């Protein structure tokens, strides 16, 4: 106050007060933008190559999805994640955002399955994982069942044919930070098959998966989750 009084004596009190007010407003706006954690939802819908009849016949009967579902050739996924989660991996080129995924739902045909999120992972690689020429975003979750492990993954890769170094500024991902939702939905890539939804069901007693579905035919979008 004394400082204000001193300045007030100079005949320019309003300029300082206005400046402080603007500064306070800007500071408040900055905190208002940073502080609340925001949840984002990714929604992907698409098709996969339906299993042929002979493959359907070999499937165990108690899979989470019926044979009609698996013959439908249509599927979708929804992932809800929190976009302020901290990176738990010290690797400067690999970000692991444990706990970021709050919900993951897979729908095949007419059957929807909510996967538990305790083993869900969101991994961002900015030329890490031993591949400097490759950037990737992987979201996945798995669930243990009596038959085996069901795993769902949404994987996107951006890579160059040449052995370029995409770490840092040269790539689309300039760090291992959690990218914008638009990139988690659609990371640009050079090849149509460098983005895919994968569903596999592995039995501990079998070398090959009981079920393996993968498709790049997906439309994925993102949107902020609004409070109910």
């Amino acid at each position, binding site marked *: 106050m004394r400082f204000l009084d001193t300045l007030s004596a100079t005949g320019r009190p309003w300029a300082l007060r206005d400046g402080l007010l603007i500064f306070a407003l800007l500071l408040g706006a900055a905190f208002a933008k940073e502080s609340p954690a925001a949840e984002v939802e990714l929604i992907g819908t698409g098709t996969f*190559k339906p299993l042929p009849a002979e493959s359907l016949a070999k499937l165990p009967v108690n899979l989470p999805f019926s044979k009609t579902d698996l013959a439908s050739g249509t599927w979708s996924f929804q992932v809800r994640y929190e976009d302020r989660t901290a990176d738990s991996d010290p690797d400067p080129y690999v970000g692991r955002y444990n706990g970021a995924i709050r919900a993951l739902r897979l729908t095949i045909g007419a059957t929807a399955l909510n996967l538990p999120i305790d083993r869900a992972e969101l991994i961002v690689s900015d030329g890490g994982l031993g*591949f400097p020429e*490759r950037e*990737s975003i992987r979201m996945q979750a798995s669930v243990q069942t009596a038959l085996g492990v069901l795993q769902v993954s949404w*994987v996107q*890769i951006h*890579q160059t*044919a040449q052995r370029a170094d995409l770490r840092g500024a040269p790539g689309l991902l300039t760090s291992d930070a959690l990218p914008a939702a638009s990139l988690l939905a659609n990371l640009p890539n050079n*090849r*149509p*098959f*460098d983005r*895919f939804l*994968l569903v*596999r069901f592995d039995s501990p007693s079998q070398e*090959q*998966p009981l079920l*393996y579905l*993968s*498709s790049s035919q997906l439309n994925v979008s993102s949107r902020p989750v609004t409070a109910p």
Partner: protein
Amino acid sequence: MAPMSYSIRRFAAAIGLMFVALTAGCGGGGDGGGSIVVVVPPPAPITALGIVLTRTGPLTVQVDWTDDPYVTDFTVSRDGYVLASNVTSTTLIDHSVIFDQTYCYLVDGYDSRGNLIAQSDPACITVVP
């Protein structure tokens, strides 16, 4: 497959080109009338084949492509090397892939005389663990 129809198409194309060549020669106005113009039939345009790759297992890539009525057999190449030739179906399963490698597939279609008449764009897939 309709090789007879294809031959008729090629013959018609050749006649058409010959007609154009002769017409051009007459209209030139020069004094070279009576010269014989030999026209080699142009190769038939190469039809584009659609190609789709699907991971059907951890170490399995299925290659599917579209058919063409004039093709009698296909050749599937991977990274420039022939993976299978004389293929008469429109699908092939490649079991010889390993993790973290990128593979580019290309399908060529040949007619009954062995002419290349259809080809896909290269399609590449990375086998991510």
